[in-house]
């Protein structure tokens, strides 16, 4: 199984499943991270432990620790 945190910067993947608690999953869903959506990892900021994603041409950031809860498959 692959998680969003494992995806290389610049690579794309498809969202498979969201982990974490209900509130977190809802927030991700409503920001457009619905299973089946394709994502691109735009950049990482190692100092802050953050990840920037592109979804539907829109930008989103989340913490690396939380990206580890997002299951993806590379495309």
């Amino acid at each position: 199984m692959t998680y969003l945190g494992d995806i290389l910067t610049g690579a794309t993947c498809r969202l498979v499943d969201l982990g974490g608690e209900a509130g977190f999953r809802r927030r991700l869903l409503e920001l457009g991270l619905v299973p089946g959506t394709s994502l691109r990892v735009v950049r990482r900021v190692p100092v802050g432990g953050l990840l920037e994603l592109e979804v539907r041409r829109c930008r989103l950031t989340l913490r690396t620790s939380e990206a580890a809860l997002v299951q993806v498959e590379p495309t």
Partner: protein
Amino acid sequence: MAVATATPLVALAGNPNAGKSALFNRLTGGRARVANYPGLTVEREEGRVTLPVGGEIRLLDVPGTYSLAARSEDERIALLAVAGLPPLEVPDAVIVVVDGTQLARHLYLALQIIELDLPVVVAVNFADDLAKEGMELHSVELERHLGVPVIAISALSGQGMDELKRLVERVLAEPDSARPGPRWVAQDPTLLGWIDEVGRCVPEAWHRNNERRRRALALWAVLSLEPDDELHDVPADLRLAALSAHAAARAANRTLDEEIVRGRYDWIDQRADRFLRQRGQPRVSRSDQADRWLLHPALGFLLFAGLMVVVFQSLFTWADPMIGAIEVSFAWIGARVQELLPAGFLTDLLVEGVIAGVGGVLVFLPQILLLFFFIGLMEDTGYMARVAFIMDRLMRSVGLHGRAFVPMLSAYACAVPAVLSTRTMERQRDRFLTMMVLPLMTCSARLPVYGLLIAAFAAPNSEGSLTQGLLLVGMYVFGTVVALLAAAVLGRTVLKGKRVPLLLQMPPYRRPHLATVWRRMVLRAGIFVKQAGTVILLCSIGMWALLTFPKAERSPELTSAMAQVEAQLAAAPTPELEQQLVDLESSAAGEHLRNSYAGRFGRLLEPVIEPLGFDWKIGVGLVGAFAAREVFVSTMAVVYNVEAEADEENATLRERIREASWPDGRRVFTPLVCLSLMVFFALACQCMSTLAAVKRETNSWRWPAFLFVYNGALAWIASFAVFQGGRLLGFE
């Protein structure tokens, strides 16, 4: 209950960074009334807009949100305001602002609002940026699919404003033309059954017998309610219904919220290519190029640090001439009034109480305006979203929000503008936690106090020595460390909050709209003067009264001595005699202060502060310092019979303080006592203006009271430890 008024109410909703403030500013011409939503710390802004044919609307600025779903009362404001749930008024129409460059995600909110069956106009903002990125917006397609009027605008350049107003006018005249019904409807009968089951528990006051609205609110409940949400004003049976719907779906191996959100996004994804078309090759956006540097692991941090140095420098130094000008002007006005009016109680009240008090409020304005200028620039350009990105890990380690960094830094200059600037954080808990630790940062008002005390125990003529410098740096470090520790402790106890995932939309960089920045600066300054200012003014009049009354007669010895000197002066004036008179007047002022209520209160305090090594004269200084910390210096000057204008550099004051002794002849200001007093000043919330600002921002007296008590307790304990511990170790 909502009262029907002749002027229609139009709500302006949109995602954060959709350019909503700039649009609000454009439409209202910058005039708005600000109040708090009942019982909350969220501000409600409303302005009037004249429509082309001549009608007028009230435009309501709804807090920015990417969804109507909510987990806390603060987040629920968006739903309350857009849908007009009781006790709020139902809007006659809603303008939804979407960012054209982030269209798909912003349409999600538009779909939710259309579901509520209110007349909607969609304004696609940043139309000019779309063109620059080689994208083409097809408003006609968007309008056809959404079923509501759509207009491409640019709030920055003003493009599309008249058309937007015309559309609002049309929609208000024919509401049904912009109420197309929900765009996405659950097709699956089981799913629909679950949703309608929840719909049965939506109160009538919410759905107002509109079936579309009932279903929209049922969807809201399904996406918002949880066993552990922080919503208080939701009927228990609605929550129960939402939870059982989730349970039923889980039993059938399905996920209710995912199916609903997916339904809406599928609707958008199937049409997105018709709404926006790419012409030519997509290129690396300028924002991405900029972020390569600005979010660079090392360089990004350095650039941020550089920017913060500028912000800090401006508050600390550039504000000074303006502050000085305000102080001089008010002193001048006071002096003129004193000349014009007959001497007496009312003149004293007017000059020393009211005029000085108003000056004491306005003196904060330069720093407030400067800080909100920088914050406005950072928010409008999109850099503020990156600040959380850059500072997240550092601030999170003590439980603070990444955006708390800017207020914390500003507090080194002054806690008052810093408290006001916590508003950049969306969550109430993050704001309150930051406010509770801001006063522990070493503000510039502590510098004169530290200056005096360091000078008091250092050997004369050793100014500027390394030890003194290090001691000052030590006080800065001490305040900062305690503030961070306090944040860590309070964040786990009093202001315990659920760990919130950091999910940020990264807006593209944009040119700031200076008119909007300016309007926000003026707005914040106005709110401060009106709401915190009145409290500060009343407190300063109170402080003046405490320090002035009772008006006792001068002691006979002093009166006769003064008469003697005056007589000699009249006969043959010499500089020595003039100095003698000044000294006698200072003695009289000192005698008066020692007998005043503040002086008596200082004596009363002595048993409480004696274990910290402080005598009652220091107690009087502490009472006076409540007006503002630097007042400690002038209060000590008066207590020690030095002229009141003395500052911390004044040689006589320094000397008197060095010589001050207890009745038994021991020195008062030993190095240990000075240290203990500095520690006290570092921690105690000795500042009525900060407390007034916290009262205004938390909309309650509870938080300023808590702040005062916990900072005071912390100060007492720390000073006790320093003084008694120091004595045990044999220091003096």
